[in-house]
Structures are given as C-alpha cells and as structure tokens.
C-alpha cells in the first residue's frame, strides 16, 4: 500500500471540502505492480499558504486552483520552477476551461488540468492518472536502481576474482626478483612455473566465460543456427575432458542414440556439454565415473550428466546457478573454476526454452540435467 499526499490549494472552502470528501476513501488499484494507492489530502487556503506548506513538506500531487486571491495558481507554478519541488505533479484547476490557461499551465510544468465545475468521478479520474504516472515512474526508478546494484555487485566480485590469480603470479615474480636464493632447486623452479601456468589458465577461462556471459546477455553476436548432432557434440566434450579424467582414473561413458539432432548454435551446445562434463570430472573423486546420457522425450532433448563425486547439500545446490557462486569447502578448495560456468549453462538452456537442474547427495555424487526444447532455438 502506498499513500500519496495531495495538497489542495483553493480559496473556496466548499471546493477544498468537496475534494477531501471525494478522495478520502478512494483507492486506486495498480495490479500490474501489486500496489494499492490511498490518498491523504491537506488543504491550503491561498497560493502563499500552499507555497509555505510545500516548503515544509512537499506533497506528491498538487491540485492547484488557477484563480485565487493573492498569488494565482500560475504564479505558484512559476515559483516552484527551478526549486527541488518542481517535480511535484501539479493538476491545474481552472474555473473556465480556457485552452489558453491550460496551455500556459502545461508549459509552466503542470502535469494536467481539470475544468471547474467537475464531478467527483472526473476528479478521481484525473487524480488516478496523475497517481499512476507518479507510481510507475517511481517503480521504474527503483528497478533501474536495483539493476545498477546487481551490476555493481557483479563487477566487485569480478574484480576480486581477477585479482586473485594476479596476486598469486605477482607473488611468485616478487620472490624471483627479490629472493632468488629461494628459487634455487630445480623442483621449486618447476613448481613455481606450474602454479603460474595453472593460475594464468584460470584467469583466461574466467575472461572467456565472462565474454560468453556478456554475449548471451546482450544478444549481440550473430548466432549460427544449424542441425546439430548432440551425440557427436557429447563425444567431443568427452574427448576434451579425457586427459584430466585419464590422469585421475575417471571413466566417462556416453549413453546416447547414434545421432540426435536439433536446430541450434553449435558453439552454444558445445559450451553446455563442455561445462557439464568438465565439472563432472573436476568435482569427481579419483577413480570415479561419469555418465553422459542424452535422450529425446517428445519435443525435448534431455542431457543428463552424472558423477560419483563430492556432491553437495540442498542448500548449496540452491544457489549454484548464480554468477560467481562456487561452493567453498575442504573438498573444493583446490579445484579451480571461474564461477560462471553453470550460470552460463542456465542462460543457454533458457535460450532453448529449457532449464537446468541438479540432484545431489553429499559424498555420493550429482546429476545435472539440462532440458532443451527442440522446437525452440531462441530466435522467436
């Protein structure tokens, strides 16, 4: 519920009272943003008093009589101009519906005008229009602000994530420069090179993922739609993950029909599969297993990637698809990731009218399931 304050500036007591009565129990419903608007009126007997009241506590809407003793409505408008009260929505009330007065009121910044005599309904309609305008503008401002806030947070986290590998590499460089005696054994030298290489690769992955995130969000890059064979794409993703899997004794199995096609952008499908398969290897235990299953259900294609890895709690799973969410615990401490992979998979699945979900048991494993709509390639 929102209550808007209306200042009624009119030198006729009957008029002030009539407005107060008409609006006292009036409610304006704005269901699209879930708001119910109430009104609270306060009377001003003259232009001077109106200005004083505005100075003390500015209303949301000003119902301003054009013709008053002392300073006129138009003059009030003029004096408000250039002050911080110039954004008050003003409805000019004119005794004679002269076009000329209305035009000059609008020129001086009035939002609307209302001709005397008016019925309570005409008053409510005019006030409703002003109130709706005001509330919608505020709502839009709030959304814009929230968006800026999210953006700002994203950039703060990103800066932190970019700084971490730089700090590590810089630390090694400093040792080489300032304490070369600490680097004398062959082993140490090789370990330092290895760590710098790993951290550089991590940073590159972060930047690639970041570009991908931006590309999906902006819709800028031209997508190339073609018939893509998901089984072939899955085989390619498995091949990419194979070296790490072999090193750690992890077996990867594909369960898919010989061919399963859909209209899609090949690189997007590759990103989905590569992320899911590489995660299933990264977060697996040594000697574990990964099963990649692709099947068609009606008009949908289901990609399910299961692992026998560290798993996660329901609480951890709930925030997993957000940007820069990486589960931090003893088991994940030395696993490097950009924190963007799954948020990208989610964005891409949405593009194909689908979704991605996770089912997981701590210390037993996880299954990530991406469902894509074969008839929806995100171009409509």
């Amino acid at each position, binding site marked *: 519920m929102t209550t808007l304050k209306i200042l009624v500036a009119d030198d006729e007591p009957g008029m002030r009272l009539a407005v107060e009565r008409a609006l006292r129990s009036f409610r304006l419903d704005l269901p699209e943003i879930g708001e119910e608007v109430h009104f609270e009126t306060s009377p001003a007997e003259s232009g001077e008093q109106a200005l004083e009241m505005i100075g003390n506590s500015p209303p949301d809407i000003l119902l301003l009589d054009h013709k008053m003793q002392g300073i006129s409505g138009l003059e009030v408008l003029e004096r408000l101009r250039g002050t911080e009260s110039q954004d008050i929505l003003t409805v000019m009330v004119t005794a004679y519906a002269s076009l000329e007065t209305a035009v000059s009121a609008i020129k001086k910044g009035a939002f609307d005008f209302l001709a005397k005599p008016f019925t309570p309904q005409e008053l409510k309609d005019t006030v409703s229009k002003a109130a709706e305008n005001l509330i919608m503008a505020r709502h839009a401002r709030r959304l814009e602000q929230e968006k800026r806030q999210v953006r700002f947070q994203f950039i703060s986290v990103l800066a932190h994530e970019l700084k971490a590998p730089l700090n590590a590499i810089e*630390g*090694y460089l400093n040792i080489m420069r300032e304490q070369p005696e*600490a680097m004398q054994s062959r082993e140490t030298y090789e370990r330092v090179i290895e760590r710098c290489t790993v951290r550089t690769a991590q940073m590159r992955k972060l930047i690639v993922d970041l570009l991908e995130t931006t590309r999906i969000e902006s819709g800028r890059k031209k997508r190339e739609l073609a018939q893509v064979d998901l089984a072939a794409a899955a085989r390619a993703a498995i091949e990419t993950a194979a070296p790490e899997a072999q090193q750690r004794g992890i077996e990867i199995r594909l369960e898919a029909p010989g061919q399963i096609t859909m209209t899609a952008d090949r690189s997007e499908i590759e990103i989905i599969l590569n992320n899911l398969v590489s995660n299933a290897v990264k977060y697996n235990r040594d000697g574990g297993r990964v099963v990649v299953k692709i099947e068609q259900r009606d008009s949908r294609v289901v990609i399910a990637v299961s692992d026998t890895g560290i798993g996660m709690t329901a609480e951890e799973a709930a925030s997993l698809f957000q940007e820069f969410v990486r589960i931090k615990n003893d088991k994940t*401490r030395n696993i490097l990731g950009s924190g963007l992979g799954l948020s990208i998979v989610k964005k891409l699945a949405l593009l194909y009218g689908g979704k991605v979900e996770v089912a997981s048991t701590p210390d037993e494993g996880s299954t990530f399931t991406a469902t894509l709509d074969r008839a929806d390639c995100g171009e409509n």
Partner: protein
Amino acid sequence: MDHKSRKKTILVADDDIDYLGQMQLLLEAAGFEVLTAESRKEAEEILARRRPDLAVIDLMMEHQDSGFVLCYHIKKKDPSIPVILVTAVTSETGLEFDTTTEEERSWIKADRVLAKPIRYEQLYAEIGRLIGKG
C-alpha cells in the same frame, strides 16, 4: 640435537595454496623450518603434535573469523608462542584493526597484525623481533 643448531619452526596457515607456497619458499630460504596448513582444522592437527616457535596465520580461511579462533586456541594452549595474524580485509573491505591499542589487544589474541599483500622485509623484521633469526 644441539639446541642452538635446531632450526626454528614456523607454522603458516592460509587457505590460498599459492600464498602458502610462497611463504614456505621465503621462510625456508631464510633458514626456518616451515609447517603449512590449508585450514584452521589442519593447523589444529599440527599443533596437537608440534610446538612451533611462531605462527603466521590468515584471518579468513574456512570461515571469516577462522584466524581469530586459531589465534585464541594457540594462545590458550601456549601463550609463549608468538602469533602474526595476516589479513586482506583492510584492502578488501576497508575494515581496519591493529594491535596498538590496549582494547584491541584484549580481544585479538595476536602479537602482530599485518595486511596482505605482505611486504617481505616487514615480515622478516617482525619475525626477527619476535623470535630472532632462523
């Protein structure tokens, strides 16, 4: 073993393995024996078996305040072990604290607080002041 020739031992606890590796390289080059721990839990396990001559511990490990808790435990166990608390919070969050006021010394159970990134000369100097050379 002759007491004088024994290397002094420093426990370093930090959840960033590169930072940990760098500290190890530097402190070993300076003649210390280095015990490394990647979490408070690991540090506590080491402390159950060994008594280091000094501990350098990071504030944020598995939890935001792991370093404080570890400091407290070390001092409770053996108040004579000097502790240097290392923190990135000043540069990350603007939160500042040190051990120069009596009030802060009363709840931060560390002998020194150093901000990350650490300047090595400063670290060597602090270690030298607390336990002498390696």
